[in-house]
């Protein structure tokens, strides 16, 4: 087993991996940008190496700086987490070339699966069902226009290297196509360093159902059941659960075995996720493989008892899978909510600032994978994830009730969060019924704040009482708050109109 691992990531997933290493008696090295010098993952790791200025391209995407940090600290392996360089096959290869272990799949399957287009082609050949669309990415706009015209609108523009909704645009009308392709290319370039985008048929109101798989270096492959991740905003998952409300034992077996076929076709090793769309008739289409640990991996952990972060490390160190398919069982129900710093009422605009107060939700069956602490700064440079709240219940309704309570107990002051918005989702009758489709939010959730006369008065009263107590208790307070505001703080306001943007506010 490795003696020391460098974790090439930040926030909650870096903390998650560092904790897994600590439990395995593996020393950990964090890397950090200038914006993260006091971040939680830096606090937690045994060592921490500065790798560059705040912009990700100069720090968390800086391959050479990261590999150098690993060599300098005598790390034997690099865990990439998710996002950043996690699915970058060049980085993967560079790590190998530097004589280090990359904790993830080999570069070849990663490269194949990293291209949505190439993997589509391979899967079609292997007999895996896929969504109709362009065979490859293109920079020729005419090709987009042609395919869209042939299949009919709506169509979906996707970044070939993409994930998490970045570089993705739904296009309903011919006139919107050009600006959507351009925006997707820009976003993809900025997020993944590649502007390759392509187009496919947009399937309306599907479910997003994915299968967790694990493959060792000896050809053994298992699936650890599904996760339903249909609740999305801006095409990014925000609420995930397992089992999927739509799942039946037959469908589960069929999809699980298809997932294994995908993995074997790609000659994939280590853990990964095979994503499918499921339509209203329970037909399923292969979407892509996420060649890394997923944001939503904890719901699988809570229901199977398998620690996926540790499993990644065991596999990467050359161990065989410790179980066979028949040893694995789903137990109870788990739900995850991603707590983002964002304003649900302003088109999910990211929010940054200082965490002035943090109350971690507690209780039985509650897990909080956090990247923040009270006093921490939420920088503007990265994905605004603050934490993930995961609950386990004996059944879906128990888990849902637990999540409602835990969300209410998770108080975060200083930045706007998606907590109130997610409460609305979880309380909606369609969610309770399990009618979770990818257009759930668009269809069911009013993106407006309710009239809240009573609560507003309570909020005023609380603010005024708090302010008066602060004044009393601190002689420095008046000085601090008495700073002259700039004229711009008080005059005028900026506005963001929702509903006219390509993302359509969902």
């Amino acid at each position, binding site marked *: 087993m490795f003696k020391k691992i460098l974790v090439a990531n930040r926030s909650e997933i870096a903390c998650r991996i560092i904790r897994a290493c600590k439990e395995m008696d593996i020393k950990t090295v964090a890397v950090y940008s200038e914006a993260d010098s006091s971040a939680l993952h830096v606090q937690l790791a045994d060592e921490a190496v500065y790798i560059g200025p705040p912009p*990700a391209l100069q720090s968390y995407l800086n391959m050479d700086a990261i590999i150098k940090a690993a060599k300098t600290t005598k790390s034997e392996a690099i865990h990439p987490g998710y996002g950043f360089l996690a699915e970058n096959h060049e980085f993967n290869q560079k790590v190998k070339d530097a004589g280090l272990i990359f904790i993830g799949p080999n570069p070849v399957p990663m490269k194949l699966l990293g291209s949505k287009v190439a993997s589509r082609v391979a899967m079609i050949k292997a007999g895996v069902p896929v969504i109709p669309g362009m065979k490859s990415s293109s920079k020729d706009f005419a090709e987009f226009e042609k395919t869209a015209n042939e299949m009919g609108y709506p169509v979906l523009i996707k970044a070939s290297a993409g994930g998490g909704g*970045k570089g993705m645009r739904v296009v309903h009308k011919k006139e919107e196509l050009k600006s959507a392709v351009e*925006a997707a290319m*820009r*976003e993809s370039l*900025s997020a993944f360093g590649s502007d390759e985008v392509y187009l496919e048929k947009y399937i309306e109101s599907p479910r997003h159902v994915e299968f967790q798989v694990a493959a060792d270096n000896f050809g053994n492959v298992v699936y650890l059941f599904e996760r339903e991740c249909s609740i999305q905003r*801006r095409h990014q998952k925000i609420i995930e659960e397992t089992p999927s409300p739509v799942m039946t034992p037959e469908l589960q077996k069929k999809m699980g075995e298809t997932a294994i076929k995908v993995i074997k076709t790609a000659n994939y090793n280590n853990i990964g996720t095979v994503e499918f769309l499921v339509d209203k008739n329970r037909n399923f289409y292969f979407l892509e493989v996420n060649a890394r640990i997923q944001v939503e991996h904890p719901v699988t952990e809570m229901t199977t008892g398998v620690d996926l972060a540790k499993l990644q490390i065991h596999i990467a160190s050359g161990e065989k899978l410790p179980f066979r398919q028949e040893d694995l069982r789903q137990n109870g129900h788990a739900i995850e909510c991603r707590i983002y710093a964002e304003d649900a009422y*302003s*088109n999910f605009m*990211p929010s*940054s600032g*200082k965490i*002035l*107060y943090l*109350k971690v939700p507690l209780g039985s069956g509650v897990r909080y994978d956090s990247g923040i602490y009270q006093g921490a700064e939420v920088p*503007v*440079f*990265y*994905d605004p994830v603050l934490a993930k709240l995961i609950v386990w219940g004996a059944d879906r309704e128990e888990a849902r009730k637990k999540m409602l309570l835990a*969300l209410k107990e998770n*108080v*975060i*002051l*200083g930045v*706007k969060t998606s*907590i*109130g918005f997610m*409460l609305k989702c979880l309380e909606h009758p369609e969610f309770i019924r399990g009618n979770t489709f990818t257009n759930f939010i668009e269809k069911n959730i009013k993106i407006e*704040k309710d009239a*809240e006369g009573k*609560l*507003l*008065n*309570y*909020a*005023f*009263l*609380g*603010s*005024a*009482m*708090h*302010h*008066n107590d602060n004044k009393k208790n601190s002689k420095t307070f008046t000085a601090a*708050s008495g*700073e002259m*505001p*700039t004229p*711009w*703080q*008080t*005059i*005028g*306001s*900026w*506005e*963001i*109109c929702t509903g*006219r*943007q390509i993302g359509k506010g969902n």
Partner: protein
Amino acid sequence: MQLKYRNTHYDVRVEPDGEDYILTVNGEKQKFTAKRNGTNLISISNDNVKTNVYVAEDDSRFYVNIDGDGFTFEKSREEETSYGEEAKMSSDKDIIKPPMPGSIVKVLVKKGQKVEEGEGLIIIEAMKMETTLYSSIPGIVTEVNVSAGEQVDSDKVLLIVEKEK
């Protein structure tokens, strides 16, 4: 104190009344039973049902959480109490600032250009997401202070749109 919530100004005052508190919002009085229940927690009772109000403040804002519902109140300058004046100003003039530090992707308009209400002015990228800022009034672009690729802070005035007089 003066608070701004969703573009509306509120004059908020609170005074103790025995064990209770009188809240005055824009001149209207209401009585509540409330107590401090921890560093950042005020518990308000109504018909014996307790509501927990979590509050924190910094120099410019109050942040409030009530059972998962978030409120952010801007602190207004104490001197600036003449609402009418300001309201007039803000409806005559739209000063565009970024919601947070970020980088300018594209400026969609030019100085002197006429724009409609709701017309896109500028695209900004922050936290890896592109967002378009729109004009809240019809008018003329009277200032453009940035260009594509520029890094900007959240108090930077990017653009000003003014109503034609």
